[in-house]
């Protein structure tokens, strides 16, 4: 028991061990807002609350018209706003303010066949709801038709988003690609923080920092050389993770990823720039935090804890991104906006990426400033003194 006690004390006094224990909780709980938002939007779609449905009956027989009217009344009694219109132009109806347009062709009478096209007006802010609505609406109608032993209905779904009409499978696949690219924000965060902090922690642990700082090398050269090395490794780690996901999703058929179809060289270039800028931003912050640690592990633990909470807001926005420059200019948002660039265009992505580069340069300026100060030499001692003072106050 004495030996067990000693081993446990040894482990629990190691910051990395404590971090290993709490990290899964932090990581998974940081995803809660994303999954919470997904679930909430899906429930909204299921209830069809506040949805204006237009039933377009431009090429149907009278019997079908009567049947559809009855189904419309049924839906209306459930709180859905349903209007029967004669217009055949779904896009025009969507532009008029309807959220969902159902275009029926053919006859719904028993033994006959018909086609049903569901058009949904999408919203980037409610992306999960946008993707859920077509199947909810078509499911409702298919069920009502089946209850009345009506015709076989062939259903197709379209989503009108940001001025463009997508087929449902196309947008679903595009969203899969967006999700995958957005996840890279998460993947690059930890290696970038860890590598940046390790490069500073190693200098202290190997007792080389004072030699390095006394060499006739500009502080900004030290900062950017270390940052470049950390960014390269972080990018390689992220590429490896992404390639793994690509292989898994491709093999399992979970998502149909067609990156080259949606992302041209411009979009991919912006995405790469967004990745680099996020990595640079995180590395600079991690190196600044690392200046106060005496060991590699201490620096890594502190850096990961310091940068981790920042990922929670973008994670919560993945289920629906507001098209706002205010949001786009925040750190960690560039990857989301560049991921969505096939839908929203390159403007937001470029602005978001440029802002993130500026933020990374600001973080670099902070790191260089600290590196030029005495704190570069006395960082751990300064922190120790500060903690002692806090303890005394308490």
């Amino acid at each position: 028991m004495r030996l067990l006690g000693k081993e446990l004390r040894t482990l629990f006094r190691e910051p990395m061990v404590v971090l290993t224990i709490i990290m899964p909780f932090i990581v998974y709980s940081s995803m809660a807002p994303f999954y919470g938002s997904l679930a909430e939007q899906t429930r909204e779609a299921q209830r069809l609350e506040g949805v204006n449905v237009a039933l377009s009956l431009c090429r149907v027989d009278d019997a079908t018209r009567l049947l559809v009217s009855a189904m419309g009344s049924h839906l209306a009694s459930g709180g859905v706003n349903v209007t029967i219109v004669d217009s055949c132009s779904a896009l025009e109806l969507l532009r008029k303010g309807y959220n969902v347009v159902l275009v029926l062709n053919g006859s719904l009478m028993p033994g006959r066949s018909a086609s049903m096209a569901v058009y949904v007006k999408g919203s980037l802010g409610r992306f999960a709801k946008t993707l859920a609505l077509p199947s909810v609406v078509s499911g409702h109608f298919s069920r009502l038709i089946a209850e009345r032993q009506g015709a076989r209905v062939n259903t197709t779904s379209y989503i009108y988003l940001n001025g463009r009409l997508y087929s449902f499978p196309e947008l679903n696949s595009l969203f899969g690609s967006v999700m995958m690219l957005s996840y890279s924000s998460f993947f690059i965060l930890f290696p970038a923080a860890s590598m940046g902090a390790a490069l500073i922690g190693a200098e202290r642990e190997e007792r080389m920092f004072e030699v390095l700082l006394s060499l006739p090398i500009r502080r900004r050269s030290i900062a950017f050389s270390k940052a470049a090395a950390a960014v390269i490794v972080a990018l390689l780690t992220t590429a490896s993770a992404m390639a793994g996901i690509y292989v898994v999703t491709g093999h399992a058929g979970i998502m149909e990823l067609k990156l080259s179809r949606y992302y041209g060289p411009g979009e991919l270039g912006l995405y790469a720039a967004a990745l680099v800028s996020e990595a640079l931003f995180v590395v600079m912050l991690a190196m600044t935090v690392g200046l106060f640690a005496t060991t590699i592990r201490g620096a890594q633990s502190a850096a990961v804890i310091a940068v981790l909470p920042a990922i929670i807001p973008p994670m919560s926005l993945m289920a629906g991104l507001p098209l706002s420059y205010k949001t786009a200019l925040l750190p960690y948002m560039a990857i989301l906006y560049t991921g969505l660039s096939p839908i929203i265009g390159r403007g937001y992505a470029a602005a978001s990426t440029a802002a993130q580069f500026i933020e990374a340069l600001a973080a670099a300026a902070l790191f260089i400033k600290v590196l030029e100060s005495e704190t570069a030499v006395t960082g751990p001692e300064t922190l120790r003194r500060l903690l002692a003072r806090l303890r005394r106050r308490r």
Partner: protein
Amino acid sequence: MDVIVSVKELVKTYPGGTVALRGVSLKVYRGEVYGLVGPNGAGKTTAFRIIATLLKPTRGSVVVDGVDVVSDPLEARKRIAYVPEEVGGYRRLTGLEYIRFIVSSFLSASGREELVDSVVEEAAELTGLSMSVLSGKRMGEYSKGMKRRVQVAWALAVKPRLAILDEPTTGLDVEASYELRELIRDYARSRGVTVMLSSHNMFEVETVCDRVGLIRGGVLMEEGRPAEIVERFNARSLEDAYMRILASRGRSSPQ
């Protein structure tokens, strides 16, 4: 004689109020080996860190080879090779890779890139380590003595205007200490490199240094050639002289 280091009224107070230096003034001349001697916490490392541009003085000035280390630290660093106390080494690099990195960083800053190969070769030779160890083993596998030798070797081989060696033999065994002392004394004297070193070891400074400064509690108590100090205090050795100085000025620290 040319003055290489001029320290005037140097005061250093750390945040929190600890006073490490209380008006230290000294001069080091070209080609001499100057020893700063004193107990732990005397202010030796703080003084060296200020001269090496790593810390800023609270008051006073330091000029190295005509360059003020506070107002133009980058220019000062081109003139100074600094080996801190308890220095290690990049454990993933071989000794030779390390020497090349340091030497090329140092020489390229002063526009002497063409000398890199010859200086690396010279530094490698000064380490006294075989080429199979220097190029075949990473520094993580080196003993403390080997690491220290690599550090002192590059610091001398780049022929800086000033080499600062903070307690270069602390923690080394008798043999390693002896070899390092020999290296510092012989190389500095034969090549005219100015060296400032610190030590607790009175025998070491007596045999290696041309002049010594005795520091305690951030105050430079005595300065001169070892033999002069010994004679001045009618002592048997520098150690004896140091103890007499302490006795005459009170043993308690000024702090």
